[in-house]
């Protein structure tokens, strides 16, 4: 009888794990297909064979420039940023145990964006220094939000409300700086308010790549603790999780991740906010939910970029499209929270 129960248990847990693995593989395939699409489609369409010929430098001309210098950086930086936003959003949401607590809702990416605008438009600095400054600003904004919501104990709805306030304030600051910096280009303005791949360059790749690899690696390491912390601080402590260290480590790593991505692409709207919940829906509670969130982030960015470049004649920046996806989800979430609140009250 007990043997039977154990076998059954093993089967149930293995099935969940298997399902998560299949999902990772599937999402990876979708991401690769979308990525090929990004290289092939645009103002001029190329076949896959042509794309490879250009990438390997076998053929030159305008095609080589379009693919190698325009589309490839978008593919690389967009993919890395999508992954970074996805993983960072999942980490914030798990850590604060609230789907609203993603860095793009609570003003963290807006803080990084404001710092990047200040560096790039006002001081004329870009590259690693601007990224570094964006990270520091992200940390400072998070610190300030934590402080205002009552120190370390305040992981909760207070912090989220204060964060939303910060978000509004920082976006106003960004708009003001854009005006002051005599930046009348709508494209640039949208990049720093909503996120865009239109002005990414090959030189953005190294910093984004290195930071994304190191910080994601750190978060994957902390993931086993993070999963226990989803049960609440008390259970996590009783199960032997060093919660204070985990919290600080995850928060800082997730912050650096989202700030670096923001410095490269601007705060691509709603990617961090949507990726975790979508991944959680696909494979709930799995160890692989974190990596799935990253892949969902990549797919969201790629799909939005493809839609914006090929469906609309205007060529909206990605952030406008992803923002459109995020808004209804936010409404749904708030309506659900409201229902729960009514039930409790």
């Amino acid at each position, binding site marked *: 009888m007990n043997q039977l129960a*154990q076998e059954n248990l093993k089967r149930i847990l293995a099935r969940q794990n298997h399902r998560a693995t299949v999902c990772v593989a599937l999402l990876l395939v979708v991401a690769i297909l979308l990525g090929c699409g990004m290289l092939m489609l645009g103002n001029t369409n190329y076949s896959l064979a042509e794309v490879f010929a250009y990438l390997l430098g076998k053929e030159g001309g305008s095609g080589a420039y379009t693919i190698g210098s325009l589309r490839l950086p978008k593919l690389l930086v967009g993919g890395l940023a999508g992954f970074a936003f996805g993983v960072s959003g999942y980490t914030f949401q798990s850590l604060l145990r609230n789907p609203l607590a993603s860095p793009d809702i609570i003003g963290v990416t807006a803080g990084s964006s404001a710092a990047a605008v200040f560096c790039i438009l006002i001081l004329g600095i870009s590259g690693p220094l601007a990224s570094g400054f964006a990270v520091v600003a992200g940390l400072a904004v998070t610190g300030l939000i934590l402080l205002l919501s009552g120190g370390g104990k305040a992981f909760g709805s207070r912090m989220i409300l204060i964060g939303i306030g910060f978000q509004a304030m920082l976006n106003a600051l960004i708009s003001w700086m854009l005006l002051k910096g005599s930046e009348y280009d709508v494209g640039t303005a949208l990049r720093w308010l909503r996120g865009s791949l239109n002005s990414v360059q090959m030189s953005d790749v190294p910093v984004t790549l290195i930071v994304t690899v190191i910080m994601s690696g750190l978060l994957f390491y902390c993931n086993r603790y993070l999963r226990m912390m989803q049960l609440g601080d008390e259970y996590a402590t009783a*199960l032997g999780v060093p919660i204070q260290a985990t919290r600080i480590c995850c928060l800082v790593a997730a912050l650096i991740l989202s700030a670096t991505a923001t410095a490269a692409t601007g705060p691509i709207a709603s990617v961090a906010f949507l990726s975790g919940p979508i991944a959680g829906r696909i494979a709930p509670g799995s160890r692989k939910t974190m990596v799935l969130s990253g892949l969902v982030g990549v797919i969201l960015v790629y799909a939005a970029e493809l839609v914006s470049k090929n469906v609309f004649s205007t060529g909206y920046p990605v952030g406008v499209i992803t923002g459109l996806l995020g808004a209804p989800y936010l409404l749904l979430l708030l309506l659900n929270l409201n229902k729960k609140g009514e039930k409790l009250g």
Partner: protein
Amino acid sequence: MSSLAIQHSFGAKNISTGYENQLILKDLQMEIPAGKFSVILGPNGCGKSTLLKSFARLLQPKEGTVLLDGKSIYELPTQLLARHIGLLPQSPTVPAGITVADLVARGRFPYQTMFGQLKKEDYEAIAMAMDAMGVTELADKPVDSLSGGQRQRVWIALVLAQDTDILLLDEPTTYLDIAYQVEILDCLAALNRMKKTTIVAILHDINLSIRYADHIFAMKQGSLIAEGNPKDIITPDLMRTIYGMESSILTDPETGDPYVIPRSVVK
């Protein structure tokens, strides 16, 4: 799970603790009887939960310490401690969409290494814990779809899967109907009898406490007022002291235990 629990000496040594300026526990000394079922009784706000949190290392005392086999629990490695002391907190969070099997399996965390998969003894412990709490049939159901009583049994199964020698439970039966309360306490009593697991529970129902406890700790305003076998310490005087309540005490015709009937509250 099949082996007997190790009998530890465990208790609070002169702890004072509190939040901000307010002291909740005042120089409290308490030795938990090994291998026994102990219940902590006391009015709301008397420091029961705070005491249990200190025992589980959730709250570091301002003065004094909690000793396990003569060593301060704050100096022991966290993972090792998690194999000795388990806790059922009052309000755990259910991660969205997670299944019962997955949740109970998380109780094995203290035994896992970095990339460690669940081993044979892990499955054994999980299956036995689920069987003990009667949730085997629910294994592949999402926890957020269960009723309150089922959910509570799943949480207790998680702590049982942790397979600790000492089990701390903060109001394990609150919000449950009387049949569920008895069922859960029966399970805990059976665990205590069969494995000699030391159990410390906070309960609000005095008569259920008397029935299940080998040892009762009565607390008021952060201090220990009385302790001992329920037959010896449950008196109208004690009820008046800790709850400010007049009561009559009868004898349970089946068990011979005292049975408290509340009469009136003195202000």
